């Protein structure tokens, strides 16, 4: 691993923010730390940045232990949710500050700042102050400032959360393509699973100070290992073994022997066909534009299915359901996670 985090633990009084968390980032990789608020993802990022010190554990960068190194010597770039541009410096001065600290010549700073402002497409704002910029513009400047010094690692702490929906999507694409182009190993903290799915090579899903599951976006979405991950990565039907037997007896038989006893079926993976004698009945429809969400009464209880576009069924219609075994993931309860 390029960055290797081993057994990090951080407690605040009786609250355990990080509980023996191990994770890593590969060369050129974009990793998302995903989880609900209070799960420890931001704490982990801040420990990696050197902004807080862990109680125990190690951080290795290219094999060298940097656990005790002050932030300013680590050479990482950080972007915060709150933009955090220096209010009394112009855009150009902000972007060039890291180089100035390193004692770079004035010409070199000017040239580099020019390149970066071109890259974020804001060259015309070089002499403005941050207070005169929109949120999206400020965050792009913050991004440029953090990559100006060729950071060994880029840390993004919920960089999009303060922006409105449209700007957020736009900047998300920009961050993604910039990272693809520059190949800077990047860790982004987010609580938005869609954001994580869209940009990451790998997602590290956290809950209550624990690392719950790490993997590619597909793995986390299609093969969640715990109820928490299944829930957090979008909608799912989670059925116990008996309930599952009532709607898909064939699937229940295929249950693995590793203690995972909840079937996770994504709503769009449920095949629906009109059938007057079918076991399911349409309870309600929710038209969301590109998809329609269908609430079902089934022998297994309430379930939810999704079809693209307009619904082929009406409330009250009876249906039969088909779920293929490859679309059924087996997950376990994660009560154990918090208990220890």
């Amino acid at each position: 691993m390029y960055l290797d985090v081993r057994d990090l633990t951080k407690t605040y009084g009786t609250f355990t923010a990080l509980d023996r968390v191990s994770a890593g980032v590969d060369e050129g990789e974009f990793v998302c730390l995903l989880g609900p608020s209070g799960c420890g993802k931001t704490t982990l990022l801040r420990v990696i940045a050197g902004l807080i010190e862990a109680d125990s554990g190690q951080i290795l960068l290219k094999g060298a232990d940097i656990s005790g190194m002050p932030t300013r010597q680590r050479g990482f770039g950080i972007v915060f949710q709150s933009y955090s541009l220096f209010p009394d410096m112009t855009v150009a001065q902000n972007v060039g500050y890291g180089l100035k600290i390193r004692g770079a010549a004035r010409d070199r700073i000017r040239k580099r700042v020019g390149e970066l402002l071109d890259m974020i497409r804001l060259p015309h704002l070089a002499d403005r102050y941050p207070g005169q910029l929109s949120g999206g513009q400020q965050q792009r400047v913050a991004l440029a400032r953090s990559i100006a010094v060729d950071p060994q690692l880029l840390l993004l702490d919920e960089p999009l959360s303060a922006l409105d929906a449209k700007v957020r999507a736009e900047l998300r694409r920009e961050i993604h393509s910039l990272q693809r182009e520059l190949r800077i190993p990047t860790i982004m903290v987010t609580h938005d699973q869609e954001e994580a799915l869209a940009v990451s090579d790998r997602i590290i899903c956290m809950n209550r100070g624990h690392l719950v599951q790490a993997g590619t976006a597909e793995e986390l979405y299609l093969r969640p290992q715990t109820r928490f991950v299944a829930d957090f990565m979008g909608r799912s039907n989670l059925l116990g073994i008996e309930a599952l037997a009532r709607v898909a007896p064939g699937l229940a038989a295929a249950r693995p022997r590793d203690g995972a006893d909840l079937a996770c079926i994504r709503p769009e993976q449920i095949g629906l066909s009109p059938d007057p004698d079918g076991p399911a009945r349409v309870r309600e429809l929710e038209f969301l534009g590109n998809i329609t969400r269908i609430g079902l009464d089934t022998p297994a209880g309430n379930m939810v299915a999704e079809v693209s576009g307009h619904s082929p069924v009406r409330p009250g219609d009876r249906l039969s359901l088909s779920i293929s075994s490859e679309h059924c993931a087996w997950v376990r309860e994660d009560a154990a996670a918090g208990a220890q």
Partner: protein
Amino acid sequence: MTARPSTAPVPGRKGLFDANRLFVAACVGIPALGLLLFFVQPVAIVFLRSITEPDGSYGLGNYHRILEGARFWRVTGQSLVMTLITTAISVGAGFVIALALYRGHFRGKWFVRGAILLPLLAPSLMQSLGLIFLLGRNGIVSRILGTEIEIYGLWGLVIANTLYALPQAVMIIGAALVLLDARVYEAADVMGARPFRQFRDLTLPAAKYGILSAIFVVFTITITDFGNAAVIGGNYTVLATEIYRQVVGRQNFNLGAVVGIMLLLPTVLAYFIERQASRKSRGQKAAGILPYVPKYSPLRDIPLAAFSFVVSGFVVLVMAVVVYASFVTLWPYDLSLSLKNYAIDIAGGYDSLWITIWISLWAAAVGTVFVFALGVGLRHAPAWIAQPLQVLAAMPAAVPGLVLGLAYIMAFNSLSNPFNFLYGTATLIIAVNFYHYHTQAFLTLQTGFRQFPETLEEAGASLGANLGRLSRDVVLPFMAPMLVSVLLFLFMRSMVTISAVVFLSTPSVSVASFQILRLEDSGRTSQAAAFSTALMGVVILALLLLTLLNRVIASHHRAG
């Protein structure tokens, strides 16, 4: 994983001599030493002195002897009577004027606001001088009426101190009223509450802590005021003048120590009650408040406006008459204008004015640097250092200037003190001015630091900047407007303060307000007026310059 061949970070632990640690240690250490040397030490020495028996052992003998004296009780009684009357009038009138300013609707509020700022620009004896020119034996009023009003004594003191304290009461109560959002009144309107009910249920509770706080502040500044007591007190001796007489005149340090400690009690009590109160009312945030804009209502506004104009008119009149009298050839017989009074004819002349300007500049500059450094350091110091220091830095406000001056003379006059060499120097006066107003300066900057986002420092650290560099490049510009305010505040206070420095003035290092006292004392009232006017001119000039500077700073950055 192939390692990138470029710059490998140097592995290492935070060493003891890490640059940031040294910086934080210096930022915290030097101001902390200052507090220990110039605040804790003198106050501790007064305390020890008050419980030291003639044979060197500790005991309450001094208290016994002083509490047995009839004179002490008479003086204390007189002080309390004068202070309580002044407090009642000042806070009552202050509340009405604050209501007028923040809950009334009438034209000319600028005049009231301006009048309220005036007393801050001059030493507290200015009110007494004005009263003497108006109501004294040779005052205008006495001349016109042909009778002699006895202005020296209790009532002169009450009027002078009320005029001096009133603005502070207005400001404190006004600040509490501002916090009450307009939407609260709108909601009450919608619910059908009539104006009087709104006043009783909304305004009064909001002003409650402001009034409480104003009572304590006015009580403290009045009972410890020296300037007015010396000029207009006459035979009505109060604690402040008594202490001065006993300590400076008769070297009766024991009495000074005991009375100093006893004067500390009400103010310390007041200080803690006030802190408690402000903690309770801290739920209200100053940000995002929709100011209450009252509609015109003659029954309420005409009396409020009339009262405000009469009172603030009197405040202005009393100060203006001093300025006017300073230009008059021979008050009140020859009212032709001249500059004769500006030729100061006692020893020292204007020297003390220049000395005071220098002292004030130094106090302002050093003080601002110290509280800024302390603020920067405290953000990064471990909690076991930061928390006690926060409390200590906010404590000097509980010690009245009179007691602090007393403490300085006892601490630094003693030959056994290794810092005895400071006694009689301007440095000591600089110190007493700064530490007297340390709390207000410190708290003003703390408010600023609280608005400073921590992530700015973190972003800077990630770019490789150390704390020293960040403090200069990022924190300093951010704090600039507040630093200018603190600079101005310390300068203005140092220029006009009397009670602390009166103990430390010597023939070679005499401050302006002390020189004014001497002029008045030797019967040169018009020259005292001239000197006061000159002093006020300097303060107003500084006020204008620094306000302009702050405008420039504000317009330069963050515009739009």
